[in-house]
C-alpha cells in the first residue's frame, strides 16, 4: 500500500503523465478527429485506420486511454497533496522559539560587533524593523531577539493551484455527464418547444417555449457580417416570461439553459408560385402552394416537391441567385431532382422534360440558429480559473520568510546577528537582507555619532 501511494505521489509520475498527455494531444491534432469512417481508410489505409480506431486516436480526447490518463493525473495530484499537506501545514503554523542562539544553520546570516554608545538603540532598530510588518520581540538576559514571520501562508499557494486543477477536472466531468449541447433553428415568427441535442436522436422537449420575434443581420461594406441579432421571447404556460435580444457574445439564460446566437440562414416560407410551360403544346400553367406541401402537376398527372432552397446558388465559383431544388413524383419520368432558378427562367428547357419550370415568386424567411447548452459544471470550472490565477502569483512571486535580528550586549559592545530564511527565491531574499543589514548598520552608526 505504501509502495502504491509512494508511486502515486511522486513528481516523477506527474512528469511522465504530463509528457504522455502532451504527446497524445499532438497526435490528436495531427490525425483528423471524429471524421466519417471512410476518410481514415483513404488517408492511412485499412490496417492503420483500424489500429487508430481501436486505440481511440480518431476521437482522442474522449478516448478511454486519454481519459484514464487524466484520471491518473488527478489521482496523482490528490495523493501527492494529501501526502504533503500535513508537513506544509506544520511549517505554516510553526512558531520558532525566540531564545537567543547562533543561527548557524540559517541560509542567510551576518554578524557584527558595534560599540555601545547610545542606550536609544532599541528605538531606532524598531524603526528600521517596522517595515517588516509585525515583529515579535523577546528579551533575554542582556539582549533582545526580534523576529518577523512573513507570509507563512504562501506555502499553501501551491495547494490552491493543484486544487484549481482538480476543480477543472471535476467541473469538466459534471458538464460531460449532466450537461448537454443542443441546437435549434427558429424561423422568424415561429415558436418552438424543443431543441436538438448532440448525441440524441429525438428532439429534447423543453418545459417552456421560445419565439423568435425578429432576426436581423447587418453587414459591413466588405460583405462581412457585422452583427446578428435575434429578438426572442420565452413563454411559460403560454405567458410571456422574458423578452430579450440575443447577440453573438451576449448569451441569454432561461430555464437553466443558455442560448447563444450561433448561426442563421433562410428558407422558403409562405406561398411559392411556379409557371410551367408544356413543351409540346406551349400552354402555360400557374402552380402555387405552400412551400412545404406537395404540388400537383396540371391534369393531376403526378406532382412535385421542393427539397432544397438556396437564396444564392453558387456553382463553380459563379452565383446564380435564388433557386429551388425540385423532385418530381409519380410522373413516370425518371428525372433526378433539378434546380429551378428565378433569374434564369429558360434554363429548365434544356432538361427536356414534359414541362419547363420557372420560379415566379417565393417568400424567403430567415431563421436564427441558436446553440442551447446546459453545463452544470461551468461554475466549478470558473472557480478553478479564479483559484488558479490567484494561486500562481502567490506560489511564484511570494515566499515565506523568517527573519531574526538578535542584539546582545557584551559589556561595551553590541553583538548583532541578522539571520533568515526564505522558502523560495533565495537570491532576491539575500539581496533584500543585505539592504536590511545596511539599514541596521547605519542606524547603529548614527547613534554612535550623536553626542
Amino acid at each position, binding site marked *: 500500500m505504501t509502495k502504491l501511494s509512494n508511486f502515486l505521489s511522486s513528481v516523477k509520475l506527474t512528469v511522465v503523465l504530463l509528457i504522455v498527455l502532451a504527446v497524445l494531444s499532438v497526435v490528436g491534432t495531427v490525425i483528423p478527429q471524429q471524421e466519417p469512417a471512410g476518410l481514415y481508410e483513404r488517408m492511412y489505409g485499412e490496417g492503420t485506420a483500424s489500429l487508430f480506431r481501436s486505440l481511440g486516436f480518431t476521437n482522442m480526447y474522449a478516448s478511454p486511454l486519454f481519459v484514464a490518463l487524466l484520471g491518473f493525473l488527478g489521482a496523482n495530484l490528490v495523493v501527492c497533496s494529501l501526502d504533503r499537506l500535513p508537513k506544509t501545514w506544520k511549517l505554516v503554523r510553526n512558531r520558532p522559539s525566540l531564545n537567543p542562539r547562533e543561527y548557524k544553520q540559517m541560509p542567510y546570516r551576518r554578524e557584527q560587533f558595534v560599540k555601545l554608545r547610545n542606550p536609544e538603540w532599541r528605538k531606532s532598530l524598531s524603526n528600521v524593523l517596522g517595515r517588516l510588518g509585525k515583529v515579535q520581540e523577546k528579551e533575554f538576559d542582556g539582549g533582545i531577539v526580534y523576529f518577523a514571520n512573513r507570509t507563512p501562508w504562501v506555502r499553501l499557494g501551491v495547494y490552491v493551484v493543484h486544487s484549481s486543477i482538480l476543480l477543472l477536472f471535476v467541473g469538466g466531468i459534471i458538464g460531460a455527464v449532466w450537461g448537454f449541447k443542443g441546437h435549434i433553428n427558429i424561423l422568424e415568427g415561429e415558436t418552438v418547444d424543443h431543441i436538438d441535442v448532440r448525441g440524441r436522436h429525438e428532439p429534447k422537449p423543453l418545459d417552456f417555449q421560445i419565439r423568435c420575434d425578429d432576426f436581423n443581420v447587418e453587414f459591413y461594406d466588405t460583405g462581412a457580417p457585422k452583427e446578428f441579432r435575434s429578438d426572442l421571447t420565452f413563454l411559460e404556460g403560454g405567458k410571456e416570461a422574458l423578452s430579450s435580444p440575443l447577440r453573438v457574445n451576449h448569451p441569454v439564460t432561461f430555464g437553466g439553459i443558455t442560448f447563444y446566437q450561433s448561426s442563421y440562414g433562410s428558407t422558403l416560407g409562405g406561398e411559392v408560385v411556379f409557371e410551367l410551360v408544356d413543351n409540346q403544346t406551349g400552354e402555360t400553367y400557374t402552380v402555387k402552394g405552400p412551400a412545404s406541401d406537395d404540388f400537383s402537376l396540371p391534369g393531376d398527372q403526378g406532382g412535385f416537391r421542393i427539397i432544397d432552397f438556396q437564396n444564392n446558388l453558387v456553382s463553380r465559383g459563379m452565383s446564380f441567385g435564388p433557386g429551388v431544388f425540385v423532385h418530381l413524383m409519380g410522373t413516370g419520368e425518371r428525372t433526378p431532382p433539378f434546380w429551378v432558378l428565378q433569374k434564369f427562367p429558360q434554363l429548365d428547357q434544356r432538361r427536356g422534360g414534359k414541362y419547363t419550370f420557372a420560379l415566379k415568386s417565393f417568400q424567403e424567411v430567415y431563421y436564427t440558429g441558436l446553440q442551447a447548452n446546459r453545463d452544470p459544471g461551468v461554475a466549478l470550472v470558473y472557480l478553478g480559473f479564479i483559484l*488558479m490565477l490567484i494561486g500562481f502569483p502567490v506560489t511564484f512571486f511570494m515566499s515565506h520568510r523568517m527573519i531574526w535580528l538578535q542584539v546582545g550586549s557584551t559589556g561595551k559592545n553590541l553583538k548583532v546577528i541578522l539571520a533568515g530564511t526564505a522558502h523560495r527565491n533565495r537570491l532576491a531574499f539575500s539581496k533584500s537582507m543585505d539592504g536590511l543589514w545596511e539599514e541596521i548598520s547605519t542606524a547603529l552608526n548614527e547613534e554612535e555619532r550623536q553626542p
Partner: protein
Amino acid sequence: MTSSLALSIVTFIYLGSSVLYLFYLVFRTRVAATMGTWVALGGFLLNTYGIIMRWIESYDLGIGHAPLSNLYESLVFFAWTIILCYLILERKYGQKTVGAFVVPFAFFSMAYASFSSSVDSRIQPLIPALKSNWLIAHVVTCFLGYAAFAVACGLSVMYLIKSKKQRAGSDGLKFLPDPPLIEDVSYKMILIGFVLLSAGIITGSVWAHSAWGTYWSWDPKETWSLITWIVYAVLLHARYMKGWSGNRIAVISIVGFCCVLFTYFGVNFLLSGLHSYAASS
C-alpha cells in the same frame, strides 16, 4: 506617417538593433551595444506609434477596434511585447549580451508580418464573434506570455552555449553572464510567461464560452496552447526531480518556445483549425 509605413520602418530598425547586438557579441565593442539599446528603444517607440495609429485609422474607417484582431496585428504586437520585455530586463540586469539572443525574435516577427504574402496587412472589420473584451484580454495576455517565453528561450540558448564552453574548460565566453544568473533570470521569465499563458488560455476559454457556449472544444489551436502549457508545467515539476537542472531545464524551455511558435504559426498553416487568424489568411 501612416501606421503601415511606420511599422515597415520598425522592421528595419529591429534588424539594425539585432545587428548591433550581434556585433557586440562577436567583437565586444561596447559602443555597439549601447547603440543597439538606443536603436531598439527608438524602434519600440515607433512600434508603439504604429500600433496607436493603426487603432486610430481603424476608427477613421468606421470599423474601430483594438489592433489585435488578425495575424498581422498580432505579429506587430508580439514584436512590441518582446522588445518591451527585453528592455525592462536589460535595464534591470544590465546584461547587453542577451540582446543578440532576443531582439532578433522581434525582427523576425515584424519581417514576417511585413513581407510574407500570406499575411494580410489590411485593417479588417470585426466579425461578430471577435467583438469581445475577453478577446482583447486573451490576445494581450497570450502575447505578453509568449514574449516572456521568447526571452527565456534566448537565455536558455545562451545558457547552453556558455555551460558547454565552460565544461570544455574554455573561458572564451567570459563576457557572457554566469550560468546561475542566466538560469535565475530565465526561470523568472518562465514563471511570468506561465502565469500569463495560463491567463491567456483562461480568458480565451471564457471568451469561447460566451460566444459559443463551450469553454473548451479541443480545436487544434486550443490543443496546442494546452500542449505548450503542459511543457512548461513539466519544466516546473522537473526541477523537483533529482538531476534535473541546468542544461535539461534549458532544453525544455527551448522545446516550450518551439511549441509556442507552432501554436502560433504551425497550427495555421499545417493543421486545420477554426481560429480567426487561420481563417483570415
